């Protein structure tokens, strides 16, 4: 028996990642030529920082989609944690406690999603549309539409603390990514998550407690989004009620571009992060070049449709061309 690590699935996945990484590198190289300031430490760290919260959301969304689910409420949860932390702090609660409760709030949203999807068996798309507006509504109510800016000194500086010249925020994101990757690829739970996404009925018949794991997935996603919200707050030093409003669509696009299948069972955190990076590089590049940054959304839209449909696209366009030839009806003799 051949023990060579020949894995067709890994090969195609690696191929996607390599292409994505290559695209990113090409963009970076191109931009560094076109603009003096692109490859500078300052610019690079700025890009990394700005990516941080979306990166967290992307990590969370990747887990959910791999398990066969879908979560549109990620942006709202992110805003919620900031709002909760800020409101509690302003009300006199000590910062660490407020921080913890904020994270718990994220888990609570995840639990709500999980309850509706798992226990009531409702479709994740609609459920998370509903919870998204519910959570956003809570955010507005908590903040009364205002932007908060009072924070303890230590927290405010967190956004600007560097460890070995790397922003702490970035390290937290990286650590989260690493932990999640280990979870997905190396642990029992991770294997089960993939199994559920690949075929839920098989997973159940094989002895997996599908409901429990789905519950865990949504709660974990909620937690990570909440953490991302706190990082966001640290970065911009304010709590905005509109935080993450456009996030769900951007994040899902990045996750799908990164090679995660919409139906679940296959996916990659690294791919999602590369997807987010690509998005940001494009925007950054466009800014530096003075181009309209909205080209980014256009390109993203096209890439999204292409990536998800690549096989089908080549098949159907090929068929379109060939249809002329084979239009002769099969003979009725």
């Amino acid at each position, binding site marked *: 028996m051949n023990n060579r690590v020949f894995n067709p699935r890994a090969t195609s996945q690696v191929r996607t990642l390599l292409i994505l990484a290559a695209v990113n590198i090409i963009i970076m190289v191109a931009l560094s030529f076109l603009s003096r300031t692109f490859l500078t430490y300052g610019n690079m760290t700025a890009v990394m920082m700005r990516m941080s919260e979306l990166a967290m959301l992307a990590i969370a969304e990747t887990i959910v989609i791999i398990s066969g689910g879908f979560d549109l409420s990620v942006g709202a949860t992110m805003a919620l944690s900031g709002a909760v932390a800020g409101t509690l702090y302003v009300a006199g609660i000590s910062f660490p406690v407020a921080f913890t409760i904020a994270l718990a709030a994220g888990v609570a949203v995840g639990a709500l999603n999980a309850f509706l999807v798992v226990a009531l068996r409702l479709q994740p798309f609609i459920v998370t549309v509903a919870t998204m*507006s519910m959570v956003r509504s809570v955010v507005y109510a908590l903040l009364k539409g205002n932007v908060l800016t009072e924070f303890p000194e230590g927290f405010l500086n967190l956004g600007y603390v560097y460890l070995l010249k790397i922003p702490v925020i970035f390290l937290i994101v990286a650590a989260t990514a690493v932990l999640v990757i280990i979870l997905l690829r190396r642990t029992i739970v991770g294997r089960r998550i993939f199994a559920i996404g690949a075929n839920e009925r098989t997973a159940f018949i094989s002895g997996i407690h599908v409901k429990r794991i789905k519950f865990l997935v949504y709660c974990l996603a909620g937690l990570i989004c909440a953490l991302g919200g706190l990082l966001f707050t640290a970065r911009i030093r304010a709590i905005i009620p509109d935080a993450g409003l456009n996030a769900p669509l951007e994040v899902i696009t990045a996750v799908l571009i990164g090679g995660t299948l919409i139906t679940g069972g296959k996916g990659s955190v690294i791919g999602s992060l590369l997807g987010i990076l690509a998005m940001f590089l494009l925007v950054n590049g466009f800014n530096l070049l003075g181009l309209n940054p909205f080209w980014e959304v256009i390109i993203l839209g096209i890439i999204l449709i292409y990536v998800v449909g690549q096989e089908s696209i080549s098949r159907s366009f090929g068929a379109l061309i060939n249809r002329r030839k084979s239009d002769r009806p099969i003979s009725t003799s």
Partner: protein
Amino acid sequence: MMRNNNSQTSIDASVRPTQGSWLRRFFQVREIPILLYIIIMMIVFSISINGFLAVKNFENISRQITTIGIVSVGMTLVILTGGIDLSVGAMLSFAINIGGQVIVQGWPIWIVYPFMLLLGLALGLINGFLVTRIAVPALIITLGTMNIYRGILMVITKGRYITPIPSAYSALGHGFVPFIIFAVILGLFIFITLRTRFGRNLFSIGGAEQSALYSGVPVRRYKMIVYVISGLLSALAGLILIGRSGFIQPQAGTGYELNAIAAVVIGGTSIFGGSGSVLGTFLGSVLMALILAGLTMLAVNPYWIGLITGVLIILAIAVDSLRALRK
């Protein structure tokens, strides 16, 4: 041939036309529950709020319903066939913004209006083409086109507003005109979904696509058409929008897709397709607008609107899910 008399006694009750129980049949009509909620809400609100029943109040409520309502009609058709269209807001904005570029150049209104509608039609056509030709879920396709359309319009408009626009354009947005248009669209599509071959077959596509295909229903063509209608109606809503606001902004239509989906779902149409009604969607948007208005007047924090909308949606799909499970 002999008629078997035994067969008479054995036909189940569901076969015998329900004579004398028109009341029972009344309650089985799909739209009745939501109509009841509306009536209950109105009673509750008119008791607890002074001036709720004032005409002025209703004018305000109705004004907002027309634009989203028209978009929701298109969304209903798409969802009936088992699809979805996230790009409605983007199509609306594209139609009025790109179409609006020529207003500045002095084109007359009777060319501009058709031009905008044509844009909506074209975008819908692209959606329909992609959905029917590529084996990618409509959710993803319209997510992508939503971004693409918005992106293109942002590039062309460079984010600038178009203002002021000639007063001729405000005709569509003031007075009774929006309501009339909405009523006509509602009536037209209620008729289509109840009385035409095309409309009835939408249910078959959403309910059992393969059976429909086997029976000779032109599934692909009909699916294309519903997306085109969605685009057209989005553009039409845009026309009313600019009439009402007096200017054209690139951010127009933001959030319309979610509102439309909410109205459709709350109105009793199944998100899986195959069952529902345009009238239900109308009632769904009425209910949402009513609650919004009532809460505003109760001086309830407007921020709680989202929460209530979310709860309504969940209730609606939970009921729908129960109904499906019981089969």
